[in-house]
């Protein structure tokens, strides 16, 4: 079983999402301060969360694109490594922005508007992310677009801002070596990854099966209070999963099970959007003990449960489906 994927093409297709998405998000967020517009603020938080989710495949496709380009004439390994370091830094800032946006959306739900600390934190992290994403986009463009270089030579020298940012960018090689040479680090991260999974399955699973009709004596609104625990599990798994991936990029990038798992996670995001952004959620919250949820809510809960199990199944098969992508 072998699949052919052009990662360079996929990366080009996806890499505009974090760069342009964060700029639009910041513009909407800043505009929301004019007249304290809650709808605009909520929209920008949703956009940050969506962009943070879509940045996972964008980031990973970069490893595949790098493997496609290594050794090709006119492609500098140093420029690729600089772009990789810039992408790693901007990726984490964007993910923190996305997590803060989800916390803000939760506060919108609980107390009709986000807390002051959350607004300030989203503002700070999103502004820094825009700068870092611009740098990531620029360093990526330098790899294959000599028409944007200032001189005939590849732009290895940094400007003042570039030098400052480069100081904070991780060196990919060092990280990869740390992961390869310390099996205990990998063991610890994988252990946390399973604990995060148990937290998600226990809390989201309980909500899903109640919506589907199991343990109908439970009212749904208080069950929904377990969702922050699921988000904590998701955060643990996002961090541990990405750290292991950055340490062993080739192991994961050319694995069909890994990409299918990524697809299942994207579909879970879509499923959550369908649940929270339509009237399904507000109707489900009214369901009291002994009552049935609507059919549409039951379908969304069932698809959530199926997709989470797909994530577990595909995650388990990553080890045995290595090198199934060329």
């Amino acid at each position, binding site marked *: 079983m072998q699949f052919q994927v052009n990662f360079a093409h996929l990366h080009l297709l996806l890499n505009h999402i974090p760069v342009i998405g964060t700029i639009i998000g910041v513009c909407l967020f800043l505009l929301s301060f004019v007249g304290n517009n809650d709808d605009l603020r909520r929209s920008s938080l949703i956009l940050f969360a969506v962009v943070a989710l879509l940045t996972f495949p964008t980031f990973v496709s970069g490893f595949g694109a790098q493997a496609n380009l290594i050794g090709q004439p006119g492609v500098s390994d140093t420029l690729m490594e600089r772009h990789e370091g810039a992408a790693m830094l901007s990726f984490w800032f964007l993910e923190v922005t996305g997590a803060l946006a989800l916390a803000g959306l939760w506060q919108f739900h609980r107390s009709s508007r986000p807390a002051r600390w959350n607004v300030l934190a989203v503002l700070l992290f999103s502004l820094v992310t825009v700068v870092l994403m611009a740098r990531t986009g620029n360093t990526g463009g330098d790899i294959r677009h000599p028409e944007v270089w200032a001189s005939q030579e590849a732009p290895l020298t940094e400007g003042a801002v570039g030098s400052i940012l480069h100081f904070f960018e991780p060196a990919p090689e060092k990280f990869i070596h740390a992961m390869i040479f310390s099996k205990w680090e990998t063991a610890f991260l994988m252990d946390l990854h399973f604990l995060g999974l148990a937290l*998600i399955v226990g809390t989201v699973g309980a909500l899903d099966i109640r919506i589907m009709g199991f343990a109908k004596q*439970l009212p749904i609104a208080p069950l929904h*209070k377990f969702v922050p625990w699921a988000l904590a599990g998701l955060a643990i798994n996002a961090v541990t999963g990405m750290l292991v991936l950055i340490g062993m990029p080739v192991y994961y990038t050319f694995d069909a099970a890994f990409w299918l798992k990524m697809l299942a996670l994207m579909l879970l995001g879509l499923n959550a959007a369908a649940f929270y952004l339509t009237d399904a959620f507000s109707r489900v919250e009214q369901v009291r003990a002994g009552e049935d949820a609507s059919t549409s809510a039951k379908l969304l809960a069932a698809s959530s449960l199926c997709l989470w199990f797909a994530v577990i199944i595909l995650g388990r098969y990553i080890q045995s489906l290595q090198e199934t992508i060329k």
Partner: protein
Amino acid sequence: MAAPALLSLIERSGLSTWIRETDSLFGFYFILLFHNIGLALAVGSSVFVGLRLLGVAPELPVEPLKRFFIIMWAGAWISAVSGVFLLIAYPTKALTNPVFYIKLTLVGIGVWIMIRIEHVVFGDTDLSEAVKMAKGKSLAGWSFVVWVSAITAGRLLAYTFRYLVYGHPG
């Protein structure tokens, strides 16, 4: 029969060899998948009930949570049965590793706490919610500690074994 000879005999059996060596998607990783799903169901449900007993979402009635023990037990049995098949596949790897015995002990304690919560908190329907909570709080806390330790020990099995199969150091 000496223990090493028994381990070798199990490893040379048709079932053990097939689980280890088949290219089928239904071999070793399929069984490992069920082991993980079982554990996720058992631990996930324990975490959910435990969080409630520790005070999360106080408006949620405790008594109906009894139904989640069906899922916990289903998960525990799936893990146990799949675990036996994994042991048949790699008996030397598991039984020569002290961490394996630590894991089994922790799983035993975890299941014992699960049974205690089922009986002490949910065994008497006449108990008030406040009494159920009071009785279940420390058990729920210990349940977390033990399950986290058991999962960690299980995870470490992949990194601490001395022999993969009989006569072949890992």
